[in-house]
Every structure is written in structure tokens, then in C-alpha cells.
């Protein structure tokens, strides 16, 4: 069931819900009256974010407050780049996400393929262990993981933020389910032609797995880019701050410098907003799958 979700978009398209509009006929306007204010309400926080980032500091605390600034300025961004290590944090987060996504794609698809197609002693037990870990809440792991990382010297380094994103039970599970849904005949033919399993995996299976890999990549990107709790615990050195940790700390220091704070917020959020708008279908498939994995 879950994997079927991947292969088709959960967002309805034209033909099969014409029935819903037929009754209303031309009276579309009624739906717009309902939907437009809701959409605006959801967009409002982001609109405020962009506007405030471009508002001169002198206008923000004025009374009465106004929604639209009279002048737009890049002062907030200039101050942000001058007074914070935002570029460093951005780079750190980009590294964490890039390594996390790459490692996830490679390791989880290998393991997913192994569990789906290969027969070997311990396979059932191994997969059972993976599924069991999905139930364990991260809060339970914080203290021992911190102690563990401290012993190997990872605390306060970027490595501490990277290691938890190298692979996940969810990723292994997702890839296994996907590979199980592929017909095995093609792979058997390749094996008969003398390909090794690794060649079959790389040349035949992976190219077919693009939808599942996209889901996994988005899942990992969102999680690693936005993670706050773990970096908060594991990293106290500003040089190794991630973007999320950086702007959160900044918020504590600069409570009133709103154009500066919102500029930081734009830097932290805009990449994902743009990516979402471009790859909306894939994002939605990811949400649906992560919801239906139970």
C-alpha cells in the first residue's frame, strides 16, 4: 500500500474529481471565498518574514505598527553578514545535509536491496531489528549518544551533527519496500547473463528506484537541514554551529534587532521554500509515505 503511494501523486488532478465541481457549475467563486483567506493566513508568517527582513530597523518598533514598510532596505542582510557567522553556519548545514543525503541514498538502498532480494543467514533477524528501532523515540537516545560521542571526541565538531544522518531505519525500510515492489525477472535475466549482484544493483535496479530515492533524499534533507535538538546538545562551539542552532542562539542575543533576525530566518528557510515550490510533487509523496509507513 505504502509503496503504491510513491508511484502516483496523492494530489488529485483533473479528470477524476470533475464530479466534485460539476454540481457547483460556474459558481467557483464560493470556493475561492473560502480558500483564499485560508491560503493568505498560511502565507502570512512568511510574508511578514520577508517584509521584516527588508524593513529599516527604525520602522519596525514604530507605533502604530504597519504591515508594509514605506522603504525597503538590505541593511538587515548587511548587518547579518557583518555581525554573524551566518555563512559559516550555512556552509556547515550544507555539509551536514549533503553528506547525510548521499550516505542515506547509498547505504539505505544497498541495505534495502539486501533485505529485499538476497537470501542469507540472519536476514530475518536483521530486518526485524531495523523495524524495531523505528519505535524507539529519539529522546531515549540523547543521553547515551551524547556520552558515546563525547568518548570518541565528536562533541563540538561538525561530525557530531553528521553521524546520526548517515543512515536510518526508515530509509532501509522504505527502500526494501520499494525493491520488493519491482519485478524480479529482469534482475534474474541479468544474473543469468553473468552480472554480479552489485552490477545488477547499480545498473538495473537503481535507475528504476528514482522515485523512492527522491523520497528518501527529501526526507533526509528536510530532517538534517532543520534539525535543532541534536545540534543543540552536541555542539557548543560557534564554529561548528548549524544554521538552525546559529539563528536560535542569535535570537537569544539580539532579541530586538528584528530585521537582522528575519534576514537570518530568510537565509535558513528560503532554500527549502524554493526547493519545495520546485519539487512540490516529490515533497508531497514524501509526506504521504512517511505518514503511511506504519
Amino acid at each position, binding site marked *: 500500500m505504502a509503496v503504491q503511494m510513491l508511484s502516483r501523486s496523492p494530489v488529485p488532478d483533473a479528470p477524476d474529481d470533475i464530479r466534485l465541481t460539476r454540481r457547483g457549475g460556474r459558481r467557483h467563486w464560493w470556493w475561492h471565498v473560502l480558500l483564499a483567506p485560508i491560503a*493568505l493566513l498560511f502565507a502570512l508568517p*512568511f510574508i511578514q518574514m520577508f517584509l521584516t527582513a527588508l524593513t529599516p530597523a527604525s520602522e519596525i518598533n514604530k507605533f502604530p505598527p504597519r504591515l508594509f514598510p514605506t522603504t525597503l532596505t538590505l541593511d538587515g542582510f548587511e548587518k547579518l553578514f557583518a555581525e554573524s557567522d551566518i555563512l559559516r553556519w550555512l556552509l556547515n548545514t550544507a555539509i551536514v545535509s549533503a553528506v547525510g543525503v548521499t550516505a542515506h541514498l547509498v547505504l539505505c538502498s544497498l541495505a534495502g536491496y539486501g533485505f529485499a532480494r538476497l537470501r542469507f543467514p*540472519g536476514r530475518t533477524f536483521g530486518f526485524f531489528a531495523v523495524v524495531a528501532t523505528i519505535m524507539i523515540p529519539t529522546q*531515549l537516545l540523547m*543521553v547515551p549518544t551524547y556520552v558515546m560521542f563525547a568518548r570518541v571526541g565528536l562533541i563540538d565538531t561538525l561530525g557530531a551533527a553528521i553521524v546520526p544522518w548517515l543512515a536510518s*531505519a526508515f530509509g532501509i525500510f522504505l527502500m526494501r519496500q520499494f525493491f520488493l515492489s519491482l519485478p524480479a525477472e529482469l534482475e534474474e535475466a541479468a544474473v543469468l547473463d553473468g552480472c554480479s549482484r552489485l552490477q545488477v544493483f547499480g545498473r538495473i535496479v537503481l535507475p528504476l528506484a528514482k522515485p523512492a530515492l527522491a523520497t528518501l533524499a527529501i526526507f533526509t534533507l528536510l530532517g538534517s537541514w532543520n534539525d535543532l535538538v541534536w545540534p543543540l546538545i552536541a555542539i557548543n562551539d560557534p564554529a561548528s554551529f548549524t544554521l538552525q542552532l546559529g539563528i536560535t542562539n542569535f535570537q537569544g542575543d539580539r532579541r530586538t534587532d528584528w530585521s537582522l533576525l528575519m534576514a537570518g530566518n530568510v537565509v535558513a528557510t528560503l532554500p527549502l521554500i524554493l526547493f519545495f515550490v520546485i519539487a512540490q510533487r516529490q*515533497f508531497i509523496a514524501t509526506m504521504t509515505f512517511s505518514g503511511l509507513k506504519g
Partner: protein
Amino acid sequence: MASTTAGVRRRSALLPQAHAPRAATRPGSRKERRRAGIQGWGFVAPALLIVLGLSIFPAVWAFWLSLQSWDGFSTPTWVGLGNYQAMVTDAALRDAVGHTILYTVLFVPASVLLGMALALLLNRTLPLIGVYRTAIFVPFVASAAATGILTTYLFNPQFGLANTVLRALHLPQQGWLEDPSQAMVVITLMSLWGQAAFTTVIYLAALQDIPVELLEAARIDGANRWQSFWHVTFPQLAPVTVFVTVWQVIGAIQLFDLVYTTTRGGPLDATQTIVYYLWQTAFKSLEFGYASAVAYGLFAVTLVITGGVVLYSRRAKVEAF
């Protein structure tokens, strides 16, 4: 070095199987079984090591820690079930549980109903529908850090948008995050803003799975829009509703991020949740043993809720899991 050898062996391991149909790849001789083992584990071991090393191993260690009193530096002392006993009489923990329940009660029904309502609204073809969907879904990518900054700005008592709107309507100004009785409500509202996309998307997928014939039949039988929703659509959505509710409850009782980035547990500890308390106990007070016990308590509650709902839905023949 070791991995190269394994790689070479892995390749050759396939030769004996190459001429056999799939059913016969079941390893026969001891040698073949060993080759299959090396090959299989070669594929799964790297990911498995990371996943188990970062979950089952620390989970067992956390249980061990929960039986001790330890600050992370000095020698741990064995306290047996002492930490678990202390939880029973811990007034701060009891308050945190209360705040967490308050948030769960506010957030879960609201998010389920909002998701269902938005899905019903968005499940149609209209000009601009794509724009509406994007506007409602895009907050899903906002991090807790970003949401926290936006929340403190929008709900700032002096110049925030929320009070500006109230002022324009000639309604009394509110303290929002600075008012102990309102802070959790504000956090709930912003959680809904960020997570509405999730429940909406799940419900949209479920709506698409309802057979068209059912709704057609209801219409032919003369059902109006409300009747066909209540008698056809709503019952069809039941498994998804059970599933989404459990999922949101599990998420709600783990609330931490947004509290950290808005109120840090205040004002007057009004937003101190279980996980916030856990984090403080572990990493501010350095009570590693006690924090681990609290974490296990939370884990137990999660398991009981999930297990209970799975059993209930099996008995009620609602196949949510």
C-alpha cells in the same frame, strides 16, 4: 583490505547461482551458504551497523543509566529503581506531564480536523487551486528555529501582527507568549501552521482512494452533499483518522523544539513539557540517570498508546495498521 577481499568473494559468490532459477538460489552446501552470507551482509552491514549502533545500543545503555545516579563525570552510583520511584513524587515532572497533556488535547483534535477540512476543500479542480495548495503546504518546510522567531515576532505584545489586528477590531490586547494561560495556545497555533500540510496530504491521499462508484451511488440515491460526506466519505476515512490521531499524539507528547525556540519553558514554567524537562534534567542539571528514567517513562507511555489503539482498531475492524 578486508573489504577488498570481501568484494572479490562477493563477486565470485554469484557464479554458482548464475545458471539456477531463483528458487534454487537458496544456499545448499555449507560453502555456498557462507558465500551468500558474506554477500548479503556486505549489502546490509554498513547501514545496519549505523542504525543499530545509534539506536538499540544506546537504548539498552539508557536503561542501564536509568538505574544509576550519574552526572557524566564522577563515578556513577547504583540506585536500582530509585530514579523511577523519584518520578512518582516529582512535582516538576507532574507539572510537565500536565502541560504536555494540555498541548496534546489542544493540538491533536485541531490538527486532525484541520487536515480533514483542508483536504476536503483542496480536493477539487479550480483555477488557482495549485497556488492555494502551495500556500498551505509550504510552512511544512519551516524549521522549529524559524517558526520560533516568527512566533515571537507575530505575537509580540507591543508591535506583533496578532495584537495589531485586535487593536484594529477594538478588542483588548493580549500578552500571548508572555501570558502563562495563553503561551501554550500560541505554540499550538504555530504547530498547526507548520504541520497542517502533513495531515492534509494524508487525508487527500485517502480521499483519492475512495471509490468513485460509492459517491456516485449516494448521489443517485438522492443524498445531498452533507449526507454523502457523513454516510460515505467520513466512514471511509476512519482508518486514516485513527492512524493520523495516533501519529499526532506521539508527536505531541514529544514536543520540545518550538518550546525551546519560543518560551524556553516559561512564562512561570507554563510551557515546560516532558521532553523539555527531560532535556533540562539531562543537559542543564546533568542528572543523566534520572533523565534516562524519565525518557523510559515516556517510551513506555508511547508504547502503551500505540499498542492500545492498534488493539482497539483491530477489534473494531478499522484497519489502520
